[in-house]
């Protein structure tokens, strides 16, 4: 139901924005000062075809097709294609101008597939249509070709690609456990201080009873029962709060990755970093690094924030305060914001310019055998600091302190 008002709004904006004008396209962007989005008209740079989204550096196609999306397609598709094209162009500009990346400069034309639900097959490009279709995510695909033994009619060769999956509303409860809700967390944080406080109070009452028994009107056991009751109530509240998950989450989950600008930055970052970061590296490290550069480009504290009508997924917080746990290394937690927050702390320690270079450079020192957050990532950042920091000794000491605060 949530989709209806935004669809109407989108249609209205599109009809006014794309009323036959060929050089300006409707694009979804975030406002500068907040995470709110709006649709504005923008010219798309480096288009080489006058009738479709085929540019010098990017070609936007639909599904498995190799033909670029034409400007006379449906307005929703035009919006999506133009949004992706615009943010990819912005991202390319960032990597070339701000990061001085040779990789971005030399990157061949990238094919961007929208609404593709097929799985990626390293040997055949697209997996069969009936093989568990994918929704609500995006991925970057390394270049490749089918092996020589594949029959001629199925032979294929492809360059670097970015795939955006179709959006699909799914029940949130089907996503599995999402950890304790905020109320449970808050009550758990209070549990120990409350226990200490009650113990302290009980000690005071005990001493009063021993030394000033004549002045105490209320018997000690009454207070003891009150304290025990308070503790029991706390326990009950903590248990009870576990059943309030519904208060903190929506019934459905949906994510149109092509319409979240930071996801486009994230996927493009994967392409740039893939010159050194292969798929064999730790997923939390690889994803965290792409998250970092997406966050840098978005210039927002909270990245991947909701986009009404297109995404109700939760954001990632660059200033997430959680401490390191060995669970952060598991692939299951690769979508958490922990690695992003570590890298963001590095940015706050070293300063924007230096940190961006240090983190970009760090990919050169990541080794598959030690590709973990606590070992490989930290070691490669420290090594990169030797090269890119203004005062390596001082800055590395600052980094050690930062990592220490993060619980490493």
């Amino acid at each position, binding site marked *: 139901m949530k989709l209806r008002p935004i669809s109407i709004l989108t249609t209205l904006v599109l009809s006014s924005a794309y009323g036959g004008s060929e050089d300006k396209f409707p694009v979804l962007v975030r406002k500068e000062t907040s995470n709110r989005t709006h649709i504005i008209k923008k010219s798309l740079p480096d288009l080489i075809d006058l009738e479709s989204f085929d540019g010098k550096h990017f070609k936007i196609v639909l599904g498995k097709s190799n033909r670029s999306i034409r400007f006379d397609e449906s307005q929703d598709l035009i919006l999506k294609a133009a949004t992706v094209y615009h943010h990819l162009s912005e991202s390319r500009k960032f990597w070339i101008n701000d990061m001085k990346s040779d990789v971005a400069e030399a990157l061949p034309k990238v094919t961007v597939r929208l609404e593709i639900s097929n799985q990626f097959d390293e040997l055949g490009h697209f997996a069969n249509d009936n093989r568990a279709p994918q929704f609500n995510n995006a991925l970057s695909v390394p270049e490749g070709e089918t092996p020589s033994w594949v029959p001629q009619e199925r032979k294929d060769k492809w360059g670097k690609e970015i795939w955006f999956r179709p959006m699909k509303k799914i029940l949130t409860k089907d996503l599995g456990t999402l950890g304790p809700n905020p109320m449970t967390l808050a009550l758990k944080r209070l549990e120990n201080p409350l226990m200490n406080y009650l113990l302290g*109070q009980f000690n005071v*009452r005990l001493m009063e009873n021993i030394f000033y028994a004549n002045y105490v009107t209320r018997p000690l056991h009454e207070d003891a029962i009150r304290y025990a009751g308070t503790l029991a109530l706390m326990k009950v509240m903590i248990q009870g709060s576990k059943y309030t998950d519904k208060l903190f989450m929506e019934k459905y989950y949906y994510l149109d990755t092509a319409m979240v600008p930071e996801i486009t930055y994230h996927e493009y970052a994967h392409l740039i970093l893939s010159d050194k970061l292969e798929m064999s590296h730790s997923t939390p490290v690889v994803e965290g690094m792409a998250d970092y550069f997406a966050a840098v480009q978005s210039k927002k504290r909270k990245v991947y924030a909701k986009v009404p009508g297109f995404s109700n997924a939760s954001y990632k917080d660059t200033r997430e305060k959680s401490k*390191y746990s*060995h669970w952060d290394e598991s692939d299951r937690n690769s979508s958490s914001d922990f690695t992003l927050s570590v890298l963001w702390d590095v940015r706050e320690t070293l300063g924007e310019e230096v940190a961006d270079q240090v983190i970009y450079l760090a990919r050169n020192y990541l080794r598959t055998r030690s590709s973990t957050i606590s070992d490989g990532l930290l070691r490669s950042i420290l090594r990169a600091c030797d090269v890119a920091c203004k*005062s390596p000794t001082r800055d590395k000491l600052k980094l050690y302190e930062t990592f220490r*605060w*993060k619980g490493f």
Partner: protein
Amino acid sequence: MKNLFLVLAMLLFLLVNADAFEVSLLFNNKESISRELKMDARKEALAWALRHPLGEELSKTSILALKDTFSALEKRNSNCDLGLILGLGKDALKYGLIDRFEEVTSFINYLRSSDLIDDLLFRLMRNSLATLNEIERRTGHKVPIRPINLYTRLNGGINLREFFDPMNKIPDDQKTCTIDTYFSMTNKLSFKNKEDRDLELYKLHYRGVREKIIDLKTFNKLEALRKTNVLDWPLYFKQYTDIIHNAKDKLTKKPETKSETHFPVEYVSRRERVTQRGRLFQNFSSTQVMMLAQIIQRTAQRMDAKQASLQWDYNDPIGEREIYVLSPMEQYRVALKMLRKDMAEIMRSEAFKNTSLDYDHLIAAAYETGIVKSDDLEYVLKFEDFWNPKTPKWQAYARFAFSLAGTATFYFPPPWNVLGALGLIFTQTKVLNGNQRPDADDNWNVII
């Protein structure tokens, strides 16, 4: 032929300059502010420099004078405190920096204000100058009245002739030093404390002149030495030159030109005006300073090492072994723990003879030798926090306040007692526990 002359000229130049003192060692690049030169003296020194006839050449000429003085001292292998100021005065006169010896005060004030010397040398020069002036002032003084209780049990039996013998040879403050001679004399004395030592010395000086073992001039000189506390100076020229020559900036290729940190001039004892750097010079020789600095150097190397690992050689016939590679943070923590161990070991070593060391000594030594730069010092100082965490004062007060408030809520009438307690717990969780440093033991992915 021309080339031969050139080579000979170069050799001659090297020979001539072999004895020349490296004057840049004296320049102050370790103290960010002066604790010794007061504002008035600084202003006076600037005014003196402004009206000096040498004008812009003053600085260069002062360096020449310093170089001559220290080269001469080095050539003679002399470390006399009084000789230093006498020599400097003479060279300053030679270069036209001062017109008469009395102007040396202004000259050394100028040297300090323009960072051509540091606080330690400045204080040393000022003390020496005060002693020379006191010797001068006492010339012609008569023998004072007899002190009470002239013969004491402690030093009554001293052979005065033997006691004053070193002084009768009249030190020239070039090869033999007045202060060193005075030290060797007083070493024979027995005394309870500093005040008692001074009183005993006065009595012995008096007996020496009364019994005509020393003349009035020597008596006045000895009294000048006693009055100017030469036995209690925090630092002597010999100690100073030892560290300046053999330790200062010895472990760096690029010494800093200016200090940006206050650590070396932090007071260790405000009453005696001893700074961190002063304490280092006072307590340790150059060899010890180098040893202390090397502990920090080694720690930095351990942190920076490409890789560190633990190895277990199993006690089995195949000789199987297990190697655990430390993560960067484990390497960091191990390096800091080993630093503490190194400190313990060096304290027990023969070179330090069970001297109690603290972390500040190490940092001061590392800074003096140039391993640690001003910029890094703030962060190196935090290492100690790893094994010796300090509770900030505000936190101690906050804990006390919370404990008082906790008891107070007990006496509030309902419902304020419950509300107060809840509010207190919230605040305490936020203020005191919110900023707690994580414990490495909570991290299952590391072993240290």
